[in-house]
């Protein structure tokens, strides 16, 4: 399998490398994942790196960079710019946000000869004036929480915006996939054997409906551990001590599913990280 790179070009024109996003798969059968159309990136004759755009169609061969080599920041900006130009040509009517200032990064100072240095400072992304103020109904503000999101659903804010439009089917798939993930967590949470316990103690015995787990308070300094803990650290503490099992790896599907279940049960609770 050759190295594939997906270049996600967001509205902020920030570059990020994203791995495949997939549901953690447990040993049990789960509802089949919806089929995703594969982006067949053409193979370069010279073994050059080929980069695909996340529209699933557009791709670009990067001259002089071999498959597996790293792009420099300048090369990556050039590639993403070229890909976007290509995409805008294919979608002339797209109501794409104008490129923000950050894309026109200042020329970095010449590299210092004194060892490694930190990447060039990127100017702050300009904020929209009076965030959300111009929107009908006030829009979603950082402090407004889930309520306002609901209010905005149905408001045709995505009109004419090709990228980001999604169908009811998409939404149904997302909801079902999330639900399946949470259900898996529910199962692990209620099964002493599945969670790897040796004394037949399961999580729900002390935490019915995940009560008293207060995930919204993490990360926080856990006095008894003597360090800052994430929710998963406390899950593992419980697995090791009252449950007397082996701690799970951070990417263990059981750990991921249990986190999902615990968070799902606290929906609507304000985030209050660091709470004692």
């Amino acid at each position, binding site marked *: 399998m050759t190295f594939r790179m997906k270049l996600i070009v967001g509205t902020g024109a920030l570059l990020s490398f994203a791995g495949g996003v997939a549901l953690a798969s447990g040993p049990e059968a789960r509802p089949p994942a919806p089929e995703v159309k594969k982006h067949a990136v053409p193979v370069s004759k010279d073994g050059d790196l080929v980069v695909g755009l996340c529209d699933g169609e557009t791709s670009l061969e990067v001259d002089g960079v071999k498959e597996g080599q790293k792009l420099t920041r300048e090369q990556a900006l050039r590639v993403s710019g070229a890909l976007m130009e290509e995409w805008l040509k294919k979608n002339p009517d797209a109501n794409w946000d104008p490129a923000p200032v950050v894309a026109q990064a200042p020329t970095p100072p010449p590299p210092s000869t004194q060892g490694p240095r930190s990447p060039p400072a990127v100017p702050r992304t300009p904020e929209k004036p009076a965030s959300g103020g111009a929107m009908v109904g006030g829009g979603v503000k950082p402090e407004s929480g889930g309520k306002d999101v609901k209010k905005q659903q149905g408001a045709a804010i995505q009109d004419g915006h090709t990228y980001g439009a999604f169908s009811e089917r998409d939404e149904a798939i997302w909801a079902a996939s999330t639900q399946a993930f949470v259900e898996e967590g529910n199962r692990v949470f209620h099964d002493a054997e599945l969670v790897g316990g040796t004394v037949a*103690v399961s999580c729900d*015995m002390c935490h*019915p409906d995940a009560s008293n787990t207060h995930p919204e308070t993490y990360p926080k300094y856990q006095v*008894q551990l003597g360090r800052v803990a994430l929710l998963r650290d406390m899950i593992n503490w*419980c697995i090791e001590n*009252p449950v007397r099992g082996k701690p799970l790896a951070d990417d263990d599907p059981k750990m991921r599913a249990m986190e999902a279940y615990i968070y799902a049960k606290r929906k609507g609770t304000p985030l209050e990280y660091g709470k004692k």
Partner: protein
Amino acid sequence: MGNKFRSIETKHHEERDAFFKDLQRLDRRAFMRVAGISAGIVAGLGLRTPHSFQLVNVAEAQGTKPRFSFAYISDTHLYEQKLNDRFVRAILKAVDDVNALDPQPDFVLFGGDLAQLGQANELKLGAQILKSVKAPVKMMVGEHDWFLDMGELWRELFGAPNYSFDHKGVHFVVLNSILEKDFWTEKKLTPMERMKIVAGLDNGLQSRFEVGGAQREWMKQDLAKVDKKTPVIVFSHSPLYKYYKPWNFWTDDADEVQALLKPFEKVTVIHGHTHQLLSNQIGNISFHGMLSTAWPWPYAPEGLPKLTVQMNRPDPFSQFDGCGNGRMDVLESGLVDKLYNLWERNPITVRASYLASNGRQDAPPRTKLPSY
């Protein structure tokens, strides 16, 4: 123990035992020195136990003098020892506690859920351990004891789950309040599947608890013989009121049972199941929840009786925090003062006068910390 696995708690207790053994070996001079230092530390920290687990002299107001006392151990949820020694250690600690009471209680109430999954070796282990209680033991059944074989072994070991008796002028009624409507036959569940569903709190698959028509009829006839002025104390595993349905902190026919108790002047219901400090007053009836030795349940998100003084969130890093046992002092008035013997905290007394006055008198101390 016989296990090759030694938990942190086991190690802690071994160290603790070794410490006390060493203390015994001290000569008188060294003992006085240690005792003096300890007293100094206690005084320095301002620690003074308000009401110790030992019998206390209460103010001799109207009917507040203790007539007699009984202790309780409840919700031990035993697995067989080679699978889980954690809960076994807790019941042993509780038995030691009540055996150390001086004077001894008139009897010890076992509040139900002796076993975790109703297994024969769980129930027999519990029965064996309870034999070492010095005072007579009154047994009550919990849902964890019942739903594997529908109480067959429990009845064989301990007799009928509902009975009544009189003691020093008080009429006691013991109920089996954990009956459920048949949710298993239609689904073709095995006894173990049925047991596991009932053992869970938040699954919503089971029916709700009830005392049932037949038992209510028995209770009615039993109470018909009792003078209305006689104090009545009812033992019931589930709370005989409606607290929180999704977790089965609930008895479906609670209203009907309460109606049977209404004609009596002094009525107290002592219940297990909820594993937490829990106080309620409905009309003439005072309700007291018992602590578990195995683990504390969190308070339900709604429906908590307003007279309940909540204990704050137990420390998960301490096996015994939020757990314990306790004692009821039955007063001359016929009501009870309830002492919660929390193992890792100061004991808390919920007085009869607190409930009878609807919270206006003798409020127990409240914690400053949140209970979550």
